[in-house]
């Protein structure tokens, strides 16, 4: 497409042509964009600013006469709030556990699917299916699977000797976090498999052929060709996915509600329960700002790591 300025500045351009060019290059795109921009501004960006402003106010719908600016009081309260710090630590374990397992299983699946085999199409369709299941249903299904009254998992684990007796791991603070992590892994493996499969297929096949002729074992092919090729891409995908998982509250909220004894409370579920159950919007917004700050630090680290990866 030619530059708008060259058309507009060309000498002897009739006014009408100039008007039309101006319309075409400066007004027309905004005509198409305006509904999207207006909606995003009014439903997302302005509420975002309002939300940040709530964090320095006292806004609790249960105490309507107690409303007003209170400075950093909410944040001071956060410092003393044991639940908040527990949630911070839990957020780390939830994200780390989920993403690591999703990635490893996803990589395994992608490696299996790169090579042709009988029934590949149907296998592909079936293993990607969890990705399409609504998240609230994933949470309920796994909560039911883990329930000894109705689900088989506790009985199997007891029979295998993993559990002493068939009880619900979701009701034990020591083990509860594994429930949502399992559900999240089930849900997230297809995402990693799809992404990694696309990346694997971009590696030139000649490399593997040459390696095989030179007598390389499959393990050597994997560590010397596949991993170096996929390395940077893997790092970026994993780190971006971690942000998404850290914010992902649905599974935990439905499966445990953050309990028992806050053992599965992560920052995003804590924001939601504070806003939804206690209607304490000021405090919920303060937690949200804290989460945002954590993510910001993480993103900054990510950029530094990315710069290092690209250099080498």
């Amino acid at each position: 497409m030619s530059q708008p300025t060259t058309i507009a500045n060309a000498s002897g351009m009739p006014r009408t042509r100039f008007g039309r060019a101006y319309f075409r290059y400066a007004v027309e795109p905004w005509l198409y964009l305006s509904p999207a921009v207006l909606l995003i501004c009014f439903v997302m960006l302005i509420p975002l600013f309002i939300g940040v402003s709530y964090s320095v106010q006292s806004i609790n719908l249960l105490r309507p006469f107690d409303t007003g600016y209170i400075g950093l009081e909410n944040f001071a309260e956060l410092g003393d709030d044991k639940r908040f710090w527990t949630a911070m630590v839990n957020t780390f374990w939830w994200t780390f556990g989920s993403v690591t397992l999703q990635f490893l299983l996803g990589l395994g699946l992608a490696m299996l699917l790169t090579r042709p085999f009988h029934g590949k199409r149907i296998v592909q369709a079936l293993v990607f299916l969890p990705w399409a299941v609504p998240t609230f249903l994933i949470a309920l299904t796994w909560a039911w699977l883990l329930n000894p009254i109705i689900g088989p998992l506790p009985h199997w684990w007891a029979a295998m000797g993993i559990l002493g007796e068939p009880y619900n791991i979701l009701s034990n603070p020591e083990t509860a976090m594994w429930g949502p992590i399992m559900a999240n892994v089930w849900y997230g493996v297809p995402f990693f498999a799809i992404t990694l499969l696309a990346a694997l297929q971009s590696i030139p096949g000649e490399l593997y052929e040459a390696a095989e002729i030179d007598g390389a074992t499959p393990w050597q092919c994997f560590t010397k060709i596949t991993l170096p090729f996929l390395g940077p891409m893997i790092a970026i995908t994993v780190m971006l996915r971690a942000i998404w998982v850290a914010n992902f509250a649905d599974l935990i909220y439905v499966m445990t509600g953050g309990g028992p004894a806050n053992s599965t409370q992560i920052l995003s579920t804590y924001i939601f329960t504070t806003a939804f159950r206690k209607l304490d919007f000021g405090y919920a917004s303060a937690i949200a700002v804290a989460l945002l700050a954590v993510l910001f630090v993480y993103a900054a680290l990510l950029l530094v790591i990315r710069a290092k990866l690209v250099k080498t």
Partner: protein
Amino acid sequence: MASAFRPSPVMVTLKYAAILGYVAFALFPLYWLVKIALTPDALIFSDGTALWPSALTFDNFRKVIFQSDFMGYFTNSVIVSLSTAAATTLIAAAAGYAFSRFRFRGKGIVIALMLLTQMFPLLMIIAPIYKIVSSLGMLNSLTSLIVVYTAFNIPFATFLMQSFFDGIPKDLEEAAMIDGCTRPQALRLVILPLTLPGLAATLGFVFTAAWSELLFALMLISKNDAMTFPVGLLTFVSKFSVDWGQMMAAGVLALVPSCLFFFFIQRYLVQGLTSGAVKG
């Protein structure tokens, strides 16, 4: 592959065992959901962990469909998801077209703002949204949900649509416009038919996203007759938590639209992945 290197039978067996393991892992939870939904109430406990129910019944589905509020929730969810999908796709197609075909001042800022909306935790705005919606008197209305969901999905849908438009050569519509078409005509006659798969994919993605959204719906909807399916199902679960068969029958119903969409889209997904594949 076979010419240069023949894998040992052990490796082949292991490979198929691993594939089978993945398929079982992916399907088992859904199988269990359907199994309990089809087991008669009297047999749920005596069957225990038996993999196959000793008798089948559609009673649970009959009760859920005819004797509960679930059809109302289902209808609400269909209305919300369809309207959201249609509105988002229309708006995102226009925006994606502008990104793909024009260079203009402020483009960078708009793209940056859209990326920003993808970065911050959405729960940050749940309280402000509640306040705004309630001050407009729009709590418990499906319209407010549709507007909110549409805004949430626009950034992703816009980038998706832009990538589809980028795949269509610009010359096509420019040729049509040189031949005397106006831009709207060129869009309708030349571009629209080529973008249909892209539009369908966007519709499907947004529909499933709206179908499974839970937390904002919980916040904004508290009246029974305005509940969407996720909210209704959770309310049902917390109220009648011993009615296993019916809960799972309702769960199976929630699965139906997503699975329909998935089987429609996964052909393209797999095709898109394998078309560029180098034969190993």
